[in-house]
């Protein structure tokens, strides 16, 4: 970062910032679609509290989303993979990218075979990856082989956002905050802790119908604590 004479601050598009810029520019070439769905988090919040007490770990909403996404990707292989020169590659492994905010910008280390990991394991691995990303000590390979990315911005207080694809992956999920909202349950308006999930996908690789079925299944699994 450097300060020019007129008081402006210039952040060069170098280092991690440069890689982010190049990656997102490449992502912008993809014809993308966004789909959104609200999740009633009543049961999940209870489950998170229970898991925290039972394991003594800092299990969060994020880990429940990661686990739900990983398990659902296994059942929806069309969403899990990358777009390469060979074509659309659907991978047998579910390798989840997790967006991590660092002083240099957002980076996306990957939890390999995330569908085989329970909440406590996910918590440990994500914490280790996030720490490594923030200190710049993660090896290059930690950022590769992702088949899907989850980006959570709930801690910033936003309700929803449409993330940009993390190339070459087919899709990415944006997760907003949990907030009390008025919803209709059994014909009555009640207050419930709600969270909006936004799926953005590359329409070259995936169509709206299977994408919608995937997002619905993620939310159904999450709300039912079936993870």
């Amino acid at each position, binding site marked *: 970062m450097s300060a020019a004479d007129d008081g402006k601050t210039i952040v060069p598009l*170098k*280092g*991690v910032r*440069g*890689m982010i810029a190049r990656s997102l520019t490449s992502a912008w070439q993809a014809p993308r679609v966004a789909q959104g769905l609200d999740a009633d988090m009543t049961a999940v919040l209870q489950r998170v509290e229970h898991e925290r007490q039972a394991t003594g770990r800092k299990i969060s909403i994020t880990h429940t989303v990661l686990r739900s996404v990983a398990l659902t990707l296994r059942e929806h292989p069309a969403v899990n993979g990358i777009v390469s020169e060979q074509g659309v590659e659907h991978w047998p492994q579910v390798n989840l990218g997790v967006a991590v905010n660092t002083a240099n910008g957002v*980076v*996306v280390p990957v939890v390999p075979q995330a569908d085989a990991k329970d909440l406590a394991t996910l918590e440990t691995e994500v914490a280790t990856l996030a720490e490594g*990303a923030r200190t*710049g000590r*993660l*090896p*290059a*390979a*930690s*950022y*590769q*082989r992702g088949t899907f990315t989850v980006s959570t911005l709930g801690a910033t207080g936003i309700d929803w956002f449409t993330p940009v694809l993390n190339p070459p992956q087919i899709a990415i999920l944006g997760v907003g905050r949990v907030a009390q909202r008025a919803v209709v349950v059994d014909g009555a308006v009640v207050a419930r802790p709600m969270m909006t999930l936004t799926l953005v996908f590359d329409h070259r690789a995936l169509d709206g119908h299977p994408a919608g079925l995937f997002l619905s299944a993620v939310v159904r699994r999450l709300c039912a604590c079936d993870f």
Partner: protein
Amino acid sequence: MVDITLPDEAWADVEEGTEALLEDWFVAVGDRVEAGQVVANVMLVKAAHEVTAPAAGIVESIEVAAEQSFARGKALARLKTG
């Protein structure tokens, strides 16, 4: 003559076909460098690396210019030693 490279450790488990980006050179042809001196900044995926001179010597040639990408094992510059 000794090659300056991005060491193999940096490339461990990296996907085949991945290229690194040479961001900045801190030395130019004709400069004298010491062993271990940082001579360039490189980005590999999202990991930043400082490239160091493997030996003392004089920079004979720059093989990968700043802002160019390169593959594993590529000589970034050549040093005349001794």
